[in-house]
């Protein structure tokens, strides 16, 4: 256990308060929470109850209200109605620093440590151990405390290492340690496994179990059902800003969770329609980019969904980015319906009917400060203008509206900014933009990452629909079930080379993984 001498005053008070509370007791009670934003009721009558030392999963589709609820808990928003009780006391959390002082901290989906500072400096950022009365830091003491914390969590990380040298998984661990060093009794984890490989997820779960043993509670937000089964003690489900229910561990089942989240039965997550594959549309031969990938031969046919599997960092995204013209190619040839073509910029690709949905939708997919309508229109301006440059507003409004409708984009108005949408809806806007002019080839890079089950199924359904209408689809995904469920053919990429190819019926998860890992 951490000795009294090592903890600062705030942590000490938290510690003592906690000791006064029974371990089995309820540590957090959010009752009847209401939150209204202009034009939309984000939360109505939401309850959340977390016990001491439990892992409580919070699930729901994007837009269900999970992040709004957590932001209220973290002091970023204030609730319009309802009460919050923490450790038995009614609290009003008006700012993140109050949340921290109470003992609540959050590990965000997008980590933001200070990259050039060391692990030790990041952990103690803002509450450095000072030589009493002076602004000078007790570096040696801080380093020792950091080392102790790292040891407690069995982490093999150098406290003097720069944050930027750590992997995403390690950065996350550091964030967790930082949270516990604040004396946090409740840690909120937002999609913690989304950027982790399977082995790293196991380490994460070990750390979470460690936290449980120390009496720390975790609110675990994730879309990954398998993980929730493994780690959660209880699950609370939200839908459309409302509280749907809480399940005890024994009651948790995939079907039940999906039904609660979606409000309807989902017969299958991967509604794949069987269609006859057509002639080749796009052929890539001998693609190479020095140091990134080489010897890449890919062919995709009409009506075909080609899945590209592989580990994170294997070069898949780089390959399709080069095909699309976003990155340069050192050598290789591209053929579109038999004809040799040259693609040097995305403009070339788009003009030829090859479009791409980037894996980074906020960075490459959307102009967040502009409206939804403008975003949908952006790639298609040539079809929405008269004399080549004058915008035809009425046509633009109609066509954008019909695309948004086809993709079921949920938004108050197409004039709202793209930033205001949930992740799943943002992805649909990107799709709408790419599909407006019926491309020949649709490249999707992690199309359903960070998206809830309902929206995911919709996107899969749309993919099947477009394939059956003649489109050739290339899909990169790190979720094996998705690749196996949606693809007609799967190619496996490892370390910049193609490692194998499987037909739909031949593939098993183990074989694909083995192929991807082959040295």
């Amino acid at each position, binding site marked *: 256990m951490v000795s009294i001498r090592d903890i600062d005053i705030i942590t000490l008070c938290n510690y003592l308060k906690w000791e006064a509370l029974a371990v089995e007791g309820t540590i957090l009670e959010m009752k009847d929470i209401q939150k209204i934003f202009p034009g939309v009721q984000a939360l109505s009558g939401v309850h959340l109850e977390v016990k001491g030392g439990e892992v409580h999963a919070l699930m729901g589709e994007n837009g269900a209200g999970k992040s709004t609820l957590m932001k209220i808990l973290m002091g970023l928003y204030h609730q319009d109605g309802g009460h919050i009780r923490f450790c038995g006391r009614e609290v009003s959390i008006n700012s993140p620093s109050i949340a921290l002082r109470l003992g609540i901290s959050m590990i965000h989906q997008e980590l933001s440590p200070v990259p050039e500072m060391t692990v030790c400096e990041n952990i103690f950022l803002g509450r450095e151990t000072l030589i009493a009365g002076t602004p000078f830091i007790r570096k040696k003491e801080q380093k020792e405390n950091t080392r102790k914390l790292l040891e407690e969590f069995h982490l093999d990380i150098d406290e003097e290492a720069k944050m930027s040298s750590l992997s995403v998984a390690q950065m996350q661990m550091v964030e967790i340690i930082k949270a516990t060093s604040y004396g946090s009794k409740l840690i909120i984890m937002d999609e913690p496994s989304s950027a982790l490989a399977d082995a790293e997820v196991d380490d994460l779960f070990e750390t979470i179990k460690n936290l449980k043993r120390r009496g720390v509670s975790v609110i675990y937000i994730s879309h990954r059902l398998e993980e929730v089964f493994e780690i959660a003690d209880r699950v609370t489900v939200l839908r459309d800003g409302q509280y749907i229910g809480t399940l005890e561990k024994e009651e948790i089942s995939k079907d039940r969770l999906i039904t609660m989240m979606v409000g309807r039965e989902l017969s299958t997550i991967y509604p794949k329609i069987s269609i006859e594959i057509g002639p080749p549309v796009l052929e890539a031969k001998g693609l190479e980019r020095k140091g990134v990938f080489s010897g890449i031969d890919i062919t995709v046919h009409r009506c075909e969904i080609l899945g590209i599997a592989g580990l994170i960092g294997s070069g898949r995204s780089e390959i399709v980015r080069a095909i699309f013209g976003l990155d340069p190619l050192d050598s290789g040839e591209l053929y579109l319906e038999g004809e040799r073509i040259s693609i040097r910029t995305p403009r070339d690709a*788009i003009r030829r009917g090859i479009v791409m949905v980037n894996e980074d939708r906020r960075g490459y997919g959307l102009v967040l*400060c502009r409206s939804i309508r403008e975003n949908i229109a952006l790639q298609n301006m040539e079809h929405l203008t008269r004399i080549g440059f004058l915008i035809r507003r009425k046509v633009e409004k109609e066509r954008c509206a019909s695309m948004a409708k086809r993709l079921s984009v949920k938004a108050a108005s197409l004039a709202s900014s793209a930033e205001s949408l949930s992740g799943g809806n943002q992805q649909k806007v990107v799709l709408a933009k790419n599909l407006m002019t019926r491309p020949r080839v649709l490249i999707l890079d992690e199309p359903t990452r960070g998206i809830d089950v309902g929206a995911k199924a919709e996107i899969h359904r749309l993919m099947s629909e477009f394939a059956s209408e003649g489109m050739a689809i290339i899909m990169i995904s790190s979720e094996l079930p998705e690749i196996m469920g949606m693809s007609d053919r799967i190619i496996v990429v490892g370390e910049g080379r193609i490692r194998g190819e499987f037909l739909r019926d031949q593939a098993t998860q183990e074989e694909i993984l083995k192929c991807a890992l082959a040295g």
Partner: protein
Amino acid sequence: MTKSVNTELIRKYGLLLVLVVMVGIMSSVSKYFFTVTNIFDILRQVSINGILAIGMTFVIITGGIDLSVGSLVAVSGVICGSIVFNNPNSVFFGIIASVLVSGVFGFLNGFLVKQFRVPGFIATLAMMTIARGFALVYSDGRPYVLTSKSFKVIGQGYLGFIPVPVCILILVIVLMAAILYQTKFGRYVYAVGGNSNAAKASGINVGFIFLAVYTLNGLIAGLAGVVLASRISSGQPAIGVSYELDAIAAVVIGGTSLTGGVGRIAGTVLGFLIIGVINNGLNLLNVSSYYQQIVKGVIIVGAVILDQASKKRA
């Protein structure tokens, strides 16, 4: 919950309110303020800055900035000055030549940004001194005194009862607004400023957009230079110092974000009108121009603070 598109609207009406309040205050403090003569004086006074500010709006929406426009005003002034001085009747040629030369400098700005990825701030900062040097070299450091009657019309004439510079300003506003809101190009300007990566991935030629906005700004600065030369009846190589700051001030007050992606012409118009009203009012009250500098700075800061405050919600 609509964010930036709505806050722009709120900003715009807020600005309009500020302008109305300013006009109210000035009218009550000085009886000369709200007269036809004075109103047109104000409009004529702001026309040069107004023209520059409209062009600057485009550049700032793309996330860039152009510090060279003041020097380009001088360049344009000496070019048309030299032409009209030597040939008082070739006014038309003088205008075209000076606008084009400024355009070339603008093009160079854009070229540096596009080809060498020099940040707009640095490229135009350099061009500011280069262009100034060019104006001085070209004119040998001396102004051209112009007596051409036909040339005088531009800066000192009237179209009906409206001063010609004001007509030109209105024309620039209408034309640029049309380009920004009604054309594909205008859309691309917003996209490049909002997220140049996403713009590129959507097939937009980002480099071309940069080239185009800086060239356009150069041409517009050239036009402003011609109007100014006509107003003061001379082509002066030393004129226009700090004009870029006034233009930027108008754009910023008008709600266009320096980070790009958002901004409206109407905002810029309100921006330079507010500055103009306050300057004019303070002049009528015989307040020293030194104080006016301080006031202008305070307004800029105030406007940005209001802008930040309106963005913080929930």
